[in-house]
């Protein structure tokens, strides 16, 4: 099968869906420009015309309400934010309006609405270009929140989000845009709510979100060489999550089943810890795996600070594969593993210069 990047997977999903349904439109600041949202919207205005793919005034909140209105009248908007931090300007529309419109209408109208928000990191992104905050949005009933990790996920979840008929926010990590893997050419869906076992293992479960799956995979390879078998579970969707009244998928079940097997759980969330998704996972695991847990659930996430801008400080801010290995050593009471000969991911090997 051909391989494409995460970025191209998003672009391909958008094209295939827009070809299928003329009521889908794509918009946002800089969507049709020469950079095309890091390439994910490149050439789409040329392909579909300025009525269906367009740039907007710098009015995030209003452009979000605009999408809601278009959705009420039968269209499917895809609204793109180059950074999550800019999407925060639309918090009122997302949280006060869009999340509750269907509820207060008792389902009289559908609200298909896809919001794409890109998570920045590195090269001086700092405290206003690097936020994730997916937990904040997952906290609100009426919004679906997905975090595709792989290129395969990106295409399948994007198509599912477009067809879902509900508001769905997709958090796309900028560093994942370069990930390449086999992706089917034909359209396919991944059910929103379904998680993914990224790696099978027996000794410890690592629940990871977004970029932290990459760090967890690095850590797992090193741990494997040292005789530790890690299972990595990527929930992919963090709302709906689990068996509450609105839930359909298996994301929570995959985590619970895995911890029941391994008896140990680390959550590596690509976000802050306090009141975050990692706390939700730790709580669910504690409730549902109380009898099998051999150690308390351990959590890894961003430092409890705004994101610093300087390279050496941001390295301190973000958790990485080393931190995960240390956490596994601590949970499983292992002797420290010699990491002096291991190489870890660093973006300098991938990329230089501004986003």
């Amino acid at each position, binding site marked *: 099968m051909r391989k494409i990047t995460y970025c191209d997977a998003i672009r391909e999903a958008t094209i295939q869906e827009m070809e299928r349904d003329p009521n889908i*439109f794509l918009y946002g600041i800089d969507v049709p420009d020469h950079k095309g949202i890091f390439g994910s919207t490149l050439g789409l205005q040329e392909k579909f015309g300025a009525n269906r793919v367009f740039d907007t005034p710098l009015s995030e909140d209003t452009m979000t*309400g605009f999408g809601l209105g278009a959705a009420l009248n039968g269209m499917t908007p895809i609204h793109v934010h180059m950074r999550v931090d800019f999407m925060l300007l639309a918090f009122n529309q997302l949280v006060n309006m869009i999340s509750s419109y269907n509820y*207060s209408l008792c389902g009289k109208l559908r609200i298909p609405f896809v919001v794409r928000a890109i998570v920045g990191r590195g090269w001086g992104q700092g405290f206003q270009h690097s936020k994730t905050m997916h937990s904040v949005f997952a906290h609100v009933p009426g919004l679906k929140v997905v975090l595709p990790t792989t290129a395969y996920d990106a295409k399948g979840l994007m198509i599912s989000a477009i067809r879902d008929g509900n508001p769905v926010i997709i958090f796309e990590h900028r560093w994942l845009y370069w990930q390449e893997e086999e992706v089917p050419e034909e359209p396919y869906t991944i059910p929103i709510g379904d998680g993914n076992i990224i790696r099978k293992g027996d000794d410890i479960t690592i629940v990871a979100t977004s970029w932290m799956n990459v760090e967890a995979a690095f850590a797992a390879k090193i741990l494997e060489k040292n005789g530790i078998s890690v299972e990595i579970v990527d929930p992919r969707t963090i709302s709906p999550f689990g068996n509450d009244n609105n839930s359909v998928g298996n994301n929570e079940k995959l985590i619970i089943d895995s911890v029941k097997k391994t008896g140990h759980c680390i959550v590596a969330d690509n976000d802050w810890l306090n009141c975050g998704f990692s706390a939700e996972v730790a709580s669910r695991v504690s409730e549902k795996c109380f009898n099998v847990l051999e150690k308390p659930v351990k959590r890894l996430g961003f430092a409890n600070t705004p994101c610093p801008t300087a390279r050496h400080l941001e390295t301190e801010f973000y958790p990485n594969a080393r931190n995960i290995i240390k956490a596994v050593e601590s949970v499983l009471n292992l002797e420290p593993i010699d990491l002096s000969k291991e190489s870890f991911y660093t973006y300098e090997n991938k990329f230089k210069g501004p986003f």
Partner: protein
Amino acid sequence: MQNEKDIELNTELYKKLYLIRSSELAIQKYYHEDDMKTPMHMSMGAEAISVGVCHAIGDAGQVFATYRSHAAFLAKTQDVDYFFAEMYAKETSILKGKGGSMHLCHPDHNFMGTSAIVASNISVAVGAAFANKHKYGKYSSNIVVVFFGDGAVDEGTFWESFNLACLMKLPIIFVCEDNGLAVHTLIPTRRGYKSITDIVSKFNCEAFDIDSTDVLSIYKYTKEAIDIINEKQCPIFMNIRYYRYLEHVGINEDFDAGYRSKEEFKNYIEIRKDPIELQRLRLVYKLNIEASDLEKEIDDKVSQSINKAKNAPFSNLSETYTHVFN
């Protein structure tokens, strides 16, 4: 022939005005029973705006409104059964009580929704107008109207939305129901400019500044606005002044609160006239129509709706959990 049309139009306008007034008088009568557990933002005084505009855009026109939308809702839908069923949170309401007074919505009648966050529905209306333009290409029967108060003009999203509509040349009428009050705060405390209509008229739009309680004249202005939309393909801004008879939220007068005087209210009514009374005079003295028969019929209808609502069961507890998602 013209006279017959005049009679029909004016009668229709009056019936709608009277339905709204009669419904709100009934709310005032029964609210103390504490069975309508929903914050009432009363429309009293603004009826001519809702009726004149909604009648002009017809059934196909779509309306977005605010937490103060009893008048707009009834003007657009005349569904007084549903109106009271929702106030009493009963099974018979299509919203099952999940909306209440501040969140009325009736898509079957193109009453598309309301918001209690000031100005938040303006951009939604603009998006709806975009979809209409996209789907129908031409404008005439698919006008979107968004109602908001003068307080909403202080919000950034008003300016963003208005800019967008002018930029995209959308078929939409922005109706500012200008009572000079944002809750209890007067315009001079809130604005660094004199006239909203002057400023707005610099955009690619047509702006109307209307100070009238006459439903027929507001109806005619709106018809003119629709013609302009079709001819020039630009949005319309209408600032229409009115006097808010009652407190910001609640069913009572609050002239004792000190931010405005009863004297001011009396003077206003003396000069401008109450919108219902004004149209009643037109019917009775100019068109020789017996208004009291119409009124009796409407009062009876309102009473019946209230009785139906009171006697209906509450919506099911399971409604709490439904429709979070489709």
